[in-house]
């Protein structure tokens, strides 16, 4: 191929790659969510167990008052480091409705078991809205995955949650808040129904670690990411094994191919 045609192809390929990068990038109007370093980032990332336990405390003491987490079960907490007995105790603290009625045909409540899903704070959407000024606090089971930035290499859900926790302030002079709303720099439209949920020492961590807003935000962001994506550690671990195997296999296959083709080339 001639130099000119090679350059043309290379230029087109480069433009194509740029186009693809653009495709993957989020359309304009984004909120400049700053990206943090997370323990679960990268090819070898994993969840920091301390952050997870702190995060669970933040969820159960602050967030669970309004936010459900319907897809998570108490038994999942064993992955964070709770023993089965501790998990049973955490579950037993709540009263949940039994699946079947009693022999008189009435539904009744019983203490929670490890196999139960996390109890929701409200029985249905209407009750949740009524208690929250018409706004529906979203379920947190997949919050971290659903709030990720679109595209490749952008911010992830943890970055968004962390930023949101830090984003509360008095509104600037030219912004008029609608009734019941709060100003948040990182929320789309800047008016969010949720009042600031976390401040310094909103919780007292069980292990005595300082509970600054920053630590609490980091903890809840990590915990919510774990809730959304508990397969992360197994996935990256399996990925490493798969990639190593595939590299070895591809090298072998290449050598075999060259050997077979030697006389033809």
């Amino acid at each position, binding site marked *: 191929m001639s130099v000119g045609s090679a350059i043309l192809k290379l230029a087109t390929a480069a433009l194509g790659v740029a186009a693809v990068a653009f495709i993957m990038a989020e359309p304009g109007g984004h909120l400049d969510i700053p990206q943090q370093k997370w323990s679960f980032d990268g090819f070898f990332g994993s969840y920091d167990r301390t952050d997870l336990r702190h995060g669970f405390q933040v969820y159960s003491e602050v967030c669970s008052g309004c936010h459900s987490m319907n897809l998570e*079960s108490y*038994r999942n907490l064993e992955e964070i480091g709770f023993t089965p007995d501790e998990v049973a105790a955490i579950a037993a603290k709540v009263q949940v409705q039994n699946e079947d009625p009693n022999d008189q045909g009435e539904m009744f409540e019983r203490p929670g*078991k*490890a*196999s139960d899903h996390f109890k929701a704070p409200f029985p249905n959407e209407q009750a949740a809205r009524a208690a929250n000024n018409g706004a529906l606090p979203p379920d947190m089971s997949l919050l971290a995955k659903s709030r990720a930035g679109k595209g490749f290499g952008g911010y992830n859900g943890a970055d968004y949650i962390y930023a949101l926790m830090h984003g509360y302030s008095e509104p600037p002079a030219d912004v008029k808040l609608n009734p019941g709303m709060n100003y948040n720099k990182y929320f789309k439209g800047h008016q969010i129904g949720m009042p600031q949920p976390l401040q310094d020492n909103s919780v007292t961590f069980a292990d005595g670690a300082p509970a600054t807003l920053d630590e609490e935000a980091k903890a809840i962001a990590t915990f919510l990411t774990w809730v959304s994506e508990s397969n992360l550690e197994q996935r990256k671990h399996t990925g490493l094994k798969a990639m190593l*195997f*595939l590299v*070895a*296999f591809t090298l*072998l*296959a290449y*050598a*075999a191919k060259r*050997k*077979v083709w030697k*006389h033809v080339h």
Partner: protein
Amino acid sequence: MKVSSRCLGPFAVGACEATIAKGMYYMADQAHAAPESGSAGGTRREFLYLMTASAGAFGVASVVWPFVSSLNPSKDVLALASTEYDFGAVQPGEGVTIKWQGKPLFIRRRTPEEIAKAKEADPTVDPKDPTKVIANPAGLRDPQTDAARVQKAEWLVLVGVCTHLGCTPQGEKSSEMRGEFGGYYCPCHGSQYDTSGRIRKGPAPLNLAVPPYTFTSDTKVKVG
């Protein structure tokens, strides 16, 4: 002289015999061996193909495993593998049926008469090896002592599935039929069990199964 790889394995065709023979002839005759077709080159090549094919087979097997594993009980099913039950309200002579792993589970509170009747029919077993039966005066089809089937004599915990063809025997409630032996009666084909859940009459081959269980308190039992 290369031996085509298609001449290996079960799909080799008749024409390959000549090729393989020629290859062997060349391998034997070092003096005429061209550098490419020397025995070392030939076996190295075959080794490479074997390695690649083996790696591929290993890869395929490691991919198949997750598919098969996904058919095994999932974590939410396993979480329901054990059930805890509070039997405080059960009266002597009465029983309850609860659901365990999708099957009926009988929990019966036995009266002293029922316990005595069960012990009467016990076979004699070797004290050193309780599974070895020395004498079986009651003619039990599946000889077991009553003691081997309960942890606390008062409480009988059994899987309520008839060992014949899987129906649910009657007898938990005192209002139901209990058969000649005061235990359980299966309405499907007439199997009759005694107060220890042992098969005494009818087509069932084995005693009612005893699930793994522990008493977590005086009034609670955890099954599974």
